[in-house]
């Protein structure tokens, strides 16, 4: 059990992915600033933000369920960390019995969103409720294309649903991004993680200009610090998952380290660029986008995968 707790708390769990996630969040902000002809925040900014939020006063909404409101951020953090463990262990090639398959990862990746929703709803704030309902609708929309792409991955890796086997298969037979179905699947997944991370154009759950940060409106101080940390970690986990699924995972021998890091950074860069070149869409547009176009693309990707392309 001690090993699992080490994985969970230190590496590659809470501490490690928190630090890397914080760095990636800085990277994201820096790139955003660069795109906008600005200088951007200093490197330690995510740390400053986090510590500052920890020390701020925490406000608890009066008209909601207070205990639920306090537990929700912790569960969000748990969801982010446990999925980071399940994604990163195979990704780093650490051989251990502590694993989860793809279906487990899909479900675990939804826990942070679910927790935000429950926390937001427990706050009793109407704007948070609007945000939560949007978040839920967003989950409904991206869940199916995300799953379909994973199915195409499963087909391509000859019906394996374990991440380590998928990576091994890619190492042996070349990365999936090298095939047409892989490219299409990658595009779909990119959109899905955009929505999962709640970034523009799919940030309607937080829509600052519409519903004042929506789902996170009531979190303050320490609770918001945990939410922020969970978001940092998600910003690392999801690109890492994409790297595992499409870019043959990571390799830590010699110069390959550089490539491995570059892969994650590249995915984050793409996410950031998409975020900075689009306005926020409406929730019904987002749903239509995922239900029709992304599903269509994902189905095409599956068909191509069955055909072996």
């Amino acid at each position, binding site marked *: 059990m001690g090993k699992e707790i080490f994985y969970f708390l230190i590496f590659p769990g809470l501490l490690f992915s928190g630090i890397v996630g914080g760095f990636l969040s800085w990277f994201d*902000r820096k790139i955003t*600033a660069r795109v*906008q*002809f*600005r*200088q*951007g*925040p*200093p490197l*330690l*900014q995510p*740390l*400053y*933000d986090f*510590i*500052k939020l920890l*020390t*701020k*006063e*925490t*406000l608890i909404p009066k008209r909601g369920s207070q205990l639920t409101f306090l537990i929700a951020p912790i569960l969000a953090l748990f969801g982010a960390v446990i999925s980071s463990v399940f994604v990163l262990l195979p990704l780093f090639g650490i051989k251990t019995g502590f694993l989860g398959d793809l279906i487990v990862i899909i479900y675990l990746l939804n826990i942070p969103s679910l927790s935000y929703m429950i926390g937001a709803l427990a706050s009793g704030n109407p704007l948070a409720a609007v945000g939560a309902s949007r978040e839920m609708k967003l989950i409904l929309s991206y869940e199916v294309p995300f799953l379909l792409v994973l199915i195409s991955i499963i087909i391509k890796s000859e019906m394996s649903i374990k991440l380590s086997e998928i990576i091994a298969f890619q190492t042996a037979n070349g990365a999936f991004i090298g095939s047409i179905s892989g490219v299409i699947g990658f595009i779909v997944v990119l959109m899905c993680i955009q929505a999962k991370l709640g970034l523009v154009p799919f940030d309607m759950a937080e829509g*600052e*200009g519409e519903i*004042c*940060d929506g789902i*996170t*409106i*009531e*979190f*303050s*101080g320490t609770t*918001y610090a945990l939410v922020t940390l969970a978001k940092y970690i998600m910003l690392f986990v999801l690109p890492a998952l994409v790297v595992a699924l499409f870019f043959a995972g990571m390799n830590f021998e010699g110069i390959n380290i550089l490539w491995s890091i570059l892969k994650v950074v590249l995915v984050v860069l793409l996410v950031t660029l998409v975020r900075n070149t689009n306005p926020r869409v409406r929730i019904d547009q987002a749903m239509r986008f995922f239900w029709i176009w992304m599903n269509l693309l994902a189905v095409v990707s599956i068909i191509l995968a069955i055909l072996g392309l």
Partner: protein
Amino acid sequence: MGFKEKCFKKSLWVFHMSAGSCNNCDIEILDCLTPKFDIERFGMKLVGSIRHADVLLVTGIVTRKLLPRIKEVYDQAPKPIVVIAIGACACTGGMFKDSYTFKGPLDTVIPVDAYVPGCPPKPEAMLAGVVKFLNKK
């Protein structure tokens, strides 16, 4: 100066509140975000919810109708919170101080930590004001 204080100073999240202004100061506050001034360099950013705010930038005279709302929002802000009065109106009431809806100036309503006068103060002035305040603290 402890690490916590340093973090606080390095990561000021700003909530903008207008208390009956003429828009000039508000626009100039937004101007601070833009490439020319870029307050994100100092870790500042504009937030949408008062719950995340560390700095309350208040502009405008305090009108009669807004008085209870300003108190309400200030009460909902997580402490410690820095209140900065931006512009002549918020500092003194400016040329509107004789108006029948004037209930300010701001420091009679909520405790104010710093004043940035001007009509409107330039973005540079606002930045200077915030930075000076923080250095004194």
